[in-house]
């Protein structure tokens, strides 16, 4: 059982403490030779306690032995608050993590599902709102205008950057750096068909991809990973300060 929120973590911790106290009472009962009852009691409580205890801190997403470095990627930043014709480089601010996703706004299924999951993961992680930035790169610049991009991503998260290039080779090198891909085809009937890789990335301040979440990763899994990775980031910052 994985804690879903801080409140739940606290509740689970309290329950496990109560269970431990009750276990010690049960052991005392053992000493009083009420063995059969007491040992059953202990077994049941131990099962309960183990189901409550915290899982080892393992990451759910995909981590490469040789992490990808995307620091060299820089794309036109069309975020409303950014200066006109500024560019955004793929690095997190110091002590923070950057969420990166390649998508398009007329995508009804995968893109909103991933962004809604990410939004929920941020909500589950205390402090995360202040320590993560979200980057949405459009793979469909022809239809995704800066205004649409700002409105779209802004309906999921408060802090974000929307990136849009109309230069195909610039787009391709950005995709290549992430080992991502996207194609846009217009059918004979005039229908635009977009295909894209649907991995979500977290990038650190050095521009290294620290985790990759394939489509379908749950909000709980993302939140758990985010908590661990933010803690790693915090420890690293502390070490560098010393």
């Amino acid at each position, binding site marked *: 059982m994985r804690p879903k929120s801080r409140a739940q973590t606290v509740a689970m911790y309290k329950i496990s403490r109560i269970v431990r106290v009750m276990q010690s009472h049960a052991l005392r009962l053992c000493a009083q030779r009420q063995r059969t009852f007491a040992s059953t009691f202990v077994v049941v409580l131990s099962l309960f306690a183990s189901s409550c205890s915290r899982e080892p801190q393992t990451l759910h997403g995909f981590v490469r032995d040789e992490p990808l470095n995307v620091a060299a990627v820089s794309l036109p930043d069309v975020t409303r608050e950014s200066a006109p014709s500024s560019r955004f480089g793929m690095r997190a601010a110091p002590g923070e993590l950057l969420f990166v996703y390649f998508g398009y*706004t*007329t*995508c*009804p*299924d*995968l893109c*909103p*599902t991933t*962004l*809604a999951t990410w*939004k*929920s993961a941020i909500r589950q992680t205390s402090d995360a709102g202040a320590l993560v930035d979200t980057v949405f790169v459009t793979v469909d610049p022809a239809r995704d205008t800066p*205004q*649409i991009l700002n*409105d*779209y*991503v*802004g*309906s*999921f998260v408060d802090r974000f950057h929307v990136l849009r290039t109309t230069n195909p080779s610039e787009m391709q090198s950005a995709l290549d750096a992430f080992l991502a*891909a*996207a*194609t846009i085809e217009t059918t004979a009937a005039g229908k635009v*068909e*977009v*295909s*894209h*890789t*649907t991995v979500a990335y977290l990038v650190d301040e050095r521009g290294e991809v620290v985790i990759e979440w394939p*489509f*379908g990763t749950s*909000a709980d899994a993302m939140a758990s990973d985010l908590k661990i990775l933010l803690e790693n980031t915090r420890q690293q910052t502390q070490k560098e300060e010393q």
Partner: protein
Amino acid sequence: MNTNTLKKAVLGVVAVVALGACGSGTNAISVESAWARTSPMSSDAGAIYMTLTSPNDDALVSAAVDMSVAMMTQVHETTMNADGTMGMQEVDEVALPAGTAVALEPGGFHIMLMGLKQPLALGDTVKVVLTFKSGEEVTVEAEVRDEAP
């Protein structure tokens, strides 16, 4: 035919009709957890998800919402291409093997709404008419939510 016989006959007909109605009730396709994702601002695309179970082999062949909600409604499937990218295509049907729950869910089958007249807002409901290969039609109310129920 005296009055009594007539009464009995009428009762008999009523009973048969009632039983027939019961029968079609238990044979109906069940639709559970129908929901639509809140549509982000500026996006005129939406998706509706649900779980379908048919007592007989059947298939979902089309879905429709009122023109006041969206311009066009299609049944789509998100699939992975050979290069690892994902895209979606309109499908002719979603097969419903007898007694098997088939989920229309993120990353798989979904009912795609194109040209939304206004954003799908939290707490709204969208009425969807589902048409099946057998000719059966089922109308469901999909709740607009941020996440799957």
